[in-house]
């Protein structure tokens, strides 16, 4: 495709269809709502990231020299709360999912566009409360809000923080509800369940978790607010309550929630690996069903967070074996992705680099999850930096890598322009290196016994902490660079064309950026997903092929 030098008039698309703030804030177009989410979620990522920077700065030395203990505790609490509730859970579903789900299934919009917009406002309301807490001094319970510390000892902002997460939960529920109905009822003619892209399967499974798990955390936080605010006891032993019950209720949601974070990412990876290998994903049905299996079995393992909490050892056994069972579908996915590349035609574009990074880092993160699922080993490892390393590997190395892969993959579709691909390669490599430098040392620290949520620590742990802090600055750079070139590309990038990567999904068949109605005519699907042979494009037409 030639780069048009004279400013041709852009065809009508969802971005230029209407102008003005009003047209954005009252929009019911899923694509515009996705953009609203993109802006808000990114803002929270920067805030959460700055908290991480503070943590790593403080931990560079064993003494508490940058801030006092109270501040440090508030910083990691807000880091956790923001990153989990306000960044990672909405990230892929609310941005990429929102944007792509209707496009991928050939629909004009989600089933309930108004509810979609409401969910964004609900998210913003929750976020506002979060910001109020942050500005008024913060809360220091840890993102897990364990009682009775949160309900009887910590400061009163617990109520507001819990309220923020509570409200935010409803945004998540509304999104999940919308996705489920959309997948059931809005598919284009001919698009049967087993012709759906794997991204859609992943989002469907995610939505199931959202609607079944989120209400439980909501009611838990509601009870916590009552206990903290009105001294109505539910969990504090002083009232005859059981603090371990709080932990059960909390993790009944929060363990499945980790799959809310990873499943969408896995969906992205399935798309990216397939596209850049120009090959149908190996074991389509296995990957699809493993998403559903993860969603279902993911609900049965929460007690692996409670091995030392005075939960019964027998319950622990049940949770332990189920934790291993739920790991198997993840293993299936990893092997199938690797097999997809076999005899493909592999192009190492930026999204693919991120995807390969994802596979490696998620594997390490997932495997270290197996250490923690083993009861005898978790006794030593729980609440140490080993856990911190485990979950940053799966969440940052896994989920965020997948998010970056997705953003780089669909960016040309979203804004209609290509980013500088050399810079993207540099950023991907920096992120990978910086990430490992930051979090690998934490595994060692954890086995050595350094507890998490420690403001000051014994000096013998310093070496690994310094490594980790150094890594974090490289990692920060890895996030900064894309932020710059992606924004730059909105105005200055080369026009991307409808299908720059030679991908198969329906979303690539409409123009970039797509028109408000998504498709000129409702597409009719006649073939399996990922049928590259049916792709009529020739190599020359695929602009950005290696």
């Amino acid at each position: 495709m030639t780069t048009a030098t004279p400013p041709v008039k852009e065809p009508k698309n969802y971005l230029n269809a209407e102008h003005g703030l009003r047209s954005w804030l009252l929009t019911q177009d899923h694509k515009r709502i996705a953009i609203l989410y993109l802006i808000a979620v990114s803002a929270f990522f920067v805030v959460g990231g700055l908290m991480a920077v503070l943590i790593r700065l403080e931990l560079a030395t064993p003494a508490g020299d940058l801030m006092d203990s109270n501040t440090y505790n508030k910083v990691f609490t807000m880091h956790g709360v923001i990153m989990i509730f306000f960044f990672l859970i909405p990230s892929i579903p609310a941005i990429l999912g929102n944007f792509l789900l209707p496009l991928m299934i050939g629909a004009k919009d989600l089933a309930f566009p108004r509810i979609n917009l409401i969910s964004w406002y609900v998210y913003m309301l929750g976020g506002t409360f979060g910001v109020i807490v942050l500005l008024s001094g913060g809360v220091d319970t840890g993102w897990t809000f364990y009682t009775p510390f949160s309900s009887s000892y910590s400061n009163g902002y617990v109520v507001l923080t819990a309220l923020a997460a509570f409200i935010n939960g409803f945004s998540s529920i509304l999104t999940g509800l919308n996705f489920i109905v959309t997948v059931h009822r809005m598919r284009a003619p001919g698009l049967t369940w087993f012709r759906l892209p794997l991204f859609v399967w992943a989002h469907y499974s995610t939505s199931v978790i959202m609607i079944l798990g989120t209400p439980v955390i909501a009611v838990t936080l509601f009870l916590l607010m009552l206990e903290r605010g009105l001294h109505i006891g539910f969990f504090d032993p002083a009232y005859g309550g059981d603090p371990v019950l709080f932990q059960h209720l909390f993790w009944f949601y929060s363990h499945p929630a980790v799959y809310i974070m990873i499943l969408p990412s896995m969906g992205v990876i399935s798309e990216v690996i397939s596209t850049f290998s120009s090959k149908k994903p190996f074991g389509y049905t296995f990957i699809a069903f493993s998403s559903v299996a993860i969603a279902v079995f993911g609900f049965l393992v929460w007690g692996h967070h409670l091995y030392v909490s005075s939960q019964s050892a027998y319950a622990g056994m049940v949770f332990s074996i189920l934790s291993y069972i739920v790991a198997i579908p993840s293993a299936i996915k990893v092997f199938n992705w690797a097999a997809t590349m076999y005899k493909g035609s592999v192009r190492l574009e930026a999204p693919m680099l991120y995807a390969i990074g994802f596979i490696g880092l998620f594997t390490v993160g997932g495997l270290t999850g197996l250490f923690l699922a083993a009861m005898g080993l978790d006794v030593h490892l729980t609440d140490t930096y080993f856990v911190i390393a485990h979950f940053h590997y799966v969440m940052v190395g896994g989920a965020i890598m997948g998010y970056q892969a997705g953003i780089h993959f669909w960016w040309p579709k979203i804004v209609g322009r290509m980013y500088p691909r050399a810079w993207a390669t540099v950023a991907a490599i920096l992120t990978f290196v910086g990430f490992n430098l930051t979090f690998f040392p934490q595994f060692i620290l954890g086995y050595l016994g350094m507890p998490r949520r420690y403001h000051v620590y014994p000096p013998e742990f310093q070496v690994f902490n310094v490594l980790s802090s150094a890594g974090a600055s490289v990692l920060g750079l890895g996030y900064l660079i894309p932020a710059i070139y992606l924004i730059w590309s909105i105005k200055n990038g080369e026009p991307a064309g409808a299908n720059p990567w030679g991908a198969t999904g329906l979303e690539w068949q409409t123009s970039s950026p797509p028109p408000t109605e998504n498709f000129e005519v409702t597409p009719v699907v006649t073939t399996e997903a990922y049928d590259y042979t049916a792709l009529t494009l020739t190599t020359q037409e695929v602009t950005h092929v290696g």
Partner: protein
Amino acid sequence: MAAHEEHHVVPKSVYFAVFTALIVLTWVTAWISTKDLGSSSLNVAVALSIAVFKASLVVLFFMHVKYGTKLTKMIVGIGIVWLLMLLFIVMIDFWTRTWMGVAGR
């Protein structure tokens, strides 16, 4: 789109029958709770069985699930299974806490 079955209109007589059953059962359960059935667990079992039965009537007839699509039935089923999962799996912990005879294990 798949063909959709014609919307089913439940005859009024069904509503009245269900309603009568619900009212009768309400007063039966209240009355029986004041009677000693021999063990308190029996009282609980009776009260809960009646409640489950009443709820099923409402779901099946007032909420039309009996005449609904497979999908609706599936959603209702999932709801019940998930609720029981939450209740029972947590109970595994509470029921077995004293088994080992070691405090806190």
